[in-house]
Structures are given as C-alpha cells and as structure tokens.
C-alpha cells in the first residue's frame, strides 16, 4: 500500500512530529569494545588456521557484522547483509586466480604472468566499482539498502589519470631511447658486478627533466585518481531515492597531500636523528665475520629492525593523511538535502593514537591489532555527527538485488581497501 515514493507528508503520522525544517544532530556512536572484538578476531584467526585459510570469507563476514552491528547511526545500527554464498564463491574464484598467478611466476612463464598483471591493470576500475557496488549493496540502515549507481562508463571516465600517466611513461621511455647518443645497453659486467656509472652519466639533463616531471605528474595523477574515485563513490551512492552529495575540490586533496609530505619529511628527520644516536652504540658489535652463524640471525634481525624503522617513520605521515582526508570528506558530504555530516577529528590525536597502536602491535607480535582497530574506528566514527533536516522517517527506496562482485570485493580487500574503516 505505501509501497513506493512516500512524500514528506508521511512524517506527521507519528506523535509530536518535528517541523520539516528542524535540524536534529545525531552523533554517531560505536558501542563495541576492544576486549570483545579481540575474541571475535582470535576466533577468526584460529578457525582460519584450522581450515588453512578457507575460513576467510566467514571471518570477513563476522568482522563486518561486529563493526556494523555496534555502529549506531541515529539510534539504528548498520546492517551487514552480504549473502555468505557470494562471499565464499568470490573468495574461491580469487584464490584460483591468485594460485594461477603464483604458479605462472614461480615456473617462469613470463607471458602468462605479464598477461595476468596487464589484465588486472585494465580491469582495475571495473573491479574497484564492483567491489564498491558489493559493499554498499551489502549495507542497510533502517532496512534501507545503500546502492552504488555509477555506470561502467562513468567509472572508466573517472579513471582517466591512470591511462594518461601510463601514456606519459611509455612516451618518455621512447623519447629517452631516441635522445640517447648511443644505445643504452649495459656495459659488460666487471669483477664487482654491473657498473651503472657510465649509463647514468650518459643521461642528459633533458632526460633527467623528463623523469622528474614524470614523477611529479604521477603523484598528481595518483591524487587525482583518489579524488575522482572518492567523489564518484559519494555522488553515486544512494540511500533509497536519495543521492549522495559531494563538495570537496581537487585543490583540497592536493593540499592534504602537500601537508602529508611535510609531515613525512619531519618524520624522516626524526628517524635519522634516532638512527644516528643508535648507530654509535651499534658500532661496538664489531665485524660480523667473527660471529659465525650468529651473524645470520643478527642480519635477519637487523633487516626486521630496518623494516620496522621504515614503518615507524612513515606511520605518522600515513596516519596524518588518513585523518586529514577523513576530516575533509566527512565535513563536505551529505545525502541530497536531507542530511549532512560534520566531523571534528583531530589529526594530532589520531597520529598519536596510531603511533601508540603501531608500537603496541609490534611489541605484542600483532596481538594488539584488534584493540588498535577498535581504537581507531571508534575515534574516527565518534568524531562524526549526522545532521538531519525534517526527521528520519522520510527516506524511501526499493530493495534491489544488484549484489554480484564477491570476487571483486575479495580483490579490493587484498589490495588493502578495508571492508571496515
């Protein structure tokens, strides 16, 4: 009876309705806890080990369900409704492809692995879009399904920076080849290995310029891609008949990235100071030759330490970028004219929280990870307030079944696009 588009006159049905122009603020709330999520996580890890990783789709579903069901948006939790069968099927398909790729590279079938990589690159926009389609389509709030309505044409048009930058690099490689006074072949290997100096000295300033410009353009293209995709995701997201609204401009994104580079350089400087101070104390360890097999262990641990150092030095910059991006996006999006979001996330406290989390995770060999995840999720989520004009009852929609793309979702997950976050 009240099947389709209900006009806003539906509101006064309830007792004491708010006038449709009133704006109500609803801070988002996360009601889960670190200790509780630790149990969810450890059960997942254990069952994954027992099933040799086959439990992964179930584990992903449980994780998503835990976070969704404890996320209160205007007093109603989010609902995660991805059909398990689709998730399992997508996972198996993904594993098969991955296995094929592993075997192809391990056994030196260069053409096959190159084809797989090329295929993944050309299909990347398609995969991204179907992953988003899957994720939004699997999310409900008050029984209403979120939708991602972008057409494939829009997705590929939004991906233009990838193709532009690929063209630039192909052109540059050819130009450098043509400009080189003599063929850029490697000189024969000498006793100590390949000598690169003659090659480097033959590269002219013009070529260095082309390379530098290429790096700069690549960075700008990467930012542009992030901007395009985020924008498309919000503008083509829909709750019922209401479309998302997107206000940020490209310049905002570039500014965030510039500030991030600054933070990174600062971290680098600090890292060097620390390494310099530590370096003095390491010198007394003497030469490795005298240590015999213990040297191997020492080298392994030094490598791990170096990896950790790189992780730690770049951690503040990555956290800073994440926080600033989150602020920027959640202060500038909304749902048609009904709702908008405000975010008061502090970049400094998020960076501090991330540093604490990284350190504790390293110290506990990863056991702190669930607590870290909950901490960060809570800080981000609870910084957001939803402002709704005219009450929560006015959104109408249709349940749709556009829920393929389980494999794309798995790929997006493998590429580091978290389901939760």
């Amino acid at each position: 009876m009240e099947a389709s588009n209900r006009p806003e006159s539906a509101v006064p049905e309830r007792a004491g309705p708010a006038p449709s122009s009133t704006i109500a603020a609803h801070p988002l709330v996360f009601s889960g806890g670190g200790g509780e999520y630790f149990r969810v996580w450890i059960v997942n890890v254990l069952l994954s080990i027992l099933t040799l990783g086959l439990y992964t789709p179930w584990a992903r579903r449980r994780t998503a369900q835990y976070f969704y069901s404890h996320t209160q948006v205007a007093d109603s939790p989010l609902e995660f409704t991805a059909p398990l069968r689709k998730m399992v099927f997508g996972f198996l398909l993904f594993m098969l492809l991955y296995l094929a790729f592993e075997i192809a590279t391990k056994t030196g079938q260069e053409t096959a692995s190159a084809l797989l990589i090329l295929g993944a690159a050309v299909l990347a926009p398609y995969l991204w879009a179907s992953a988003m389609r899957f994720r939004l389509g699997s999310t409900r709030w008050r029984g209403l399904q979120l939708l991602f309505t972008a057409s494939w044409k829009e997705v590929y048009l939004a991906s233009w920076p990838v193709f532009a930058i690929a063209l630039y690099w192909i052109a540059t490689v050819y130009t450098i080849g043509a400009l080189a006074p003599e063929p850029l072949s490697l000189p024969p290997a000498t006793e100590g290995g390949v000598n690169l100096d003659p090659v480097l000295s033959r590269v002219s300033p013009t070529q260095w310029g082309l390379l530098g410009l290429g790096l700069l353009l690549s960075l700008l293209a990467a930012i542009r891609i992030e901007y395009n995709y985020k924008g498309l995701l919000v503008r083509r997201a829909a709750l019922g008949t209401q479309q998302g609204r997107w206000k940020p401009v490209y310049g905002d994104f570039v500014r965030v990235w510039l500030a991030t580079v600054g933070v990174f350089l600062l971290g680098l400087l600090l890292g060097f100071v620390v390494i310099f101070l530590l370096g003095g104390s390491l010198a007394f360890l003497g030469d490795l030759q005298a240590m015999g097999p213990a040297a191997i262990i020492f080298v392994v641990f030094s490598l791990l330490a170096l990896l950790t150092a790189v992780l730690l030095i770049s951690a503040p910059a990555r956290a800073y970028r994440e926080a600033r991006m989150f602020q920027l996006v959640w202060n500038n999006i909304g749902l048609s004219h009904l709702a908008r979001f405000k975010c008061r996330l502090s970049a400094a406290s998020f960076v501090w929280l991330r540093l604490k989390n990284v350190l504790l995770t390293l110290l506990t060999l990863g056991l702190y990870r669930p607590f870290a995840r909950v901490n960060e999720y809570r800080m981000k989520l609870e910084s957001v307030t939803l402002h709704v004009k005219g009450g929560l009852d006015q959104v109408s929609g249709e349940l749709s079944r556009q829920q393929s793309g389980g494999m794309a979702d798995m790929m997006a997950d493998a590429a580091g696009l978290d389901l939760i976050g």
Partner: protein
Amino acid sequence: MGEATQLPARWFNGRSSRAREVRVALTPGPRGPRLQLIPLDPADGPAREFEHDAVGWPPAWSSRRHPTTLSVELRDAGSLQIDNPQAWHDALARCGARPGLAQRMQTHWPVFVAVLLVAVVGLGAFYRYGTPWAAMQLTRLVPLAWEESLSQRVMTRIDQGRMLKPSELPVARQAELRARFDALVRQLGPKLTPYPGHKPRYTLDFRHGMGANAFALPGGIVVMTDELVTTAAQNGLGDEALIGVLAHEIGHVAYRHGTRLVVEQGVLQIGLGLAMGDVSNIVSLGSTLLTSLAYRRQHEAEADCFAQALLRQAALPTSPMADLLIAISSARDDGAKTQAHKHEEKGEVGLFEGLFSSHPQTAQRARQLKAGEAGSCPL
C-alpha cells in the same frame, strides 16, 4: 504457538525508513527457530511467517553484553530492530536455536580452548606430514619435460650471468668422473626410484666459482664445482668421496626435491599467509621461513639416505663422503673460528642453529653417514 514469547520490535519494510510497531514471535521449527511478525497497525498488513532459512539471525558476541539495538535481516521483507537483545537471545535459546561453532567459541572459553588445542596439534601434523604428502602427490602430476626445460633455462641464466665460470679441470679428468657418475646412475634400481615412471636423463656438468659445492637441478642436471674436486684432493680423499656427494645430488633429482619445494612453498605461503597474515606479517613471514627451512632439512636427510643406499648398492664406502663434508665445513670455518662451531664439532647443536639452517648439522650428518644410518633411513 500459544506459549511462544512475543517481543516488541520495530519493523522497517525495506521501502521506507519509517518504523512500524510490531510484535515478534519465535517458535521452534524443523531446521531451527521460525519467526512470526505481527504488525500492530492493521494498515501494515497481515502477520507474516518466516522459515529459519529466510532470516539473517544476528550472532551473539558475548554471553553477557549485547549491542544496544539488535537488527534482524528479513531479506526482501526489510529488517527488524529489537531493543531488548537479552530477551531475544533467551527466546531463541528456548526455541532450540543451535549456535554455530564460531559463536560457541566466541561466548564460551572452554570451547575456545578445546579448539585451540585441536588447532595446535592439527597444524603441527599438517605441516609435518600433510604438506609433504600433498606435495608428493602433486609432483606426480608434473611432467619430466617441464623439469627439464626449467633446468635448461636456469643453466643458461647461470652461464650468461657469469655466476659460474667454465670448468678448468682437464678434459680427461672430467671424463673420468663422468664415467664413474654414469656407472653410479646405472645402479639405480626400482627400489631407488621413489617416483615410478620418472626416468630423468642424469648428466654431470663441471663449473668453476662459488667454492666447494655441488648442486642438482630438477630433471637430471648435476653440477659439481672444480673447488670440490680440489678440496677432496687436498685432503687426501679419493674419488669415492666425490661419488658419495654425487649420489646425494642424484637423490635430490630422484626425489624431485626442486619441484616439491615449489609446491610446498606455495602451500605454505598461501596457507600460513592467510591464516597468520591478520596477526602480523612478521609472524606469518617467520613461520613460513622456519617451516620451509624444516622441509629443506628433510630433503637433505632424504638425499643422504638415498646416497647411502645407492653407495651400498654399488658396493662403495660412505665414510669418504663424510670426511669430505667435514673437510668442507672446517675449511669454511677457518676464516671464522667461533664458539658456535666448536660446539658443533663436539656434536652439540644450538636451538637457533637447528632452526635457522637449511642443511642438517654437518657433524651429525657425517657421523650418521659413517655409521651407515643416515636420517633414520627407510631405504
């Protein structure tokens, strides 16, 4: 039906964000609890029945604490919100709901501990016996031609990249060793063919560089360095020592260890990577590394055992090979006489050395070879 508890709930029909007041009744069904939805407002239609499979039952995360609001997915019929989760879970339990293993592990520590124990034992057994067995079965499917083409490519790469130089041994000496190698290969009977039907063409090549060493590539290519031949001569060891080493390398080819390692590492990387990856990359990397080293040690022990059986078949002694192994390892130590190696000579093996080496401890190997009981040998 009469005794079924009814809970107040809010129903969102999937087409509007407006809540409708309803009552929810749970009743036992053949496959689990069933759900009945009874709208309070007649305008919202008649009561609806949902079979067990038509409902997305929300899991319980704890035996005590629940989210403030519970949502129940009803597929095309929208969603329900329950404001009293404890009452909901109690009612479900009364209707004979049987939570899955994950939820029981989640809410009951004893179940979790039991599964943990099973996991520890099962995992150990799998990586100790399961993976090697599976690798062997999978290796059966790999054709010999594939192994041969792979080895050809590796040899070309080694020679073109000048990792090894052409041998400086006199041609006559090469021919002499090759003849003994061929004689040894002719001794291979069905007992020394772990893969029936796998009949590689064994060839011996000589190269210079990389110290005293010998290695085998899948498909039959065995390479020996000039330095190994000189080391044997310098230590007054006859050709029996070199033949012993060659027998060991033939063992690697016959057991198809190169191919097996590819399979085993694939299983490890995917299995352990998926299982441990969420804990931390260090744990996942570490366990993969340690397990793969354990497999390599297992391969070495197998090849030792094979060499011993082959030498016995050819009526050759095993102790010259053992002496050569000791000579090589002490030559390597000359640069760095360390506490650790002094231990090793006495036959004491540190835990870390045991874990981090790809070959079984040299002293131990040599001792077992001398006694003719390499690696608790089945052959």
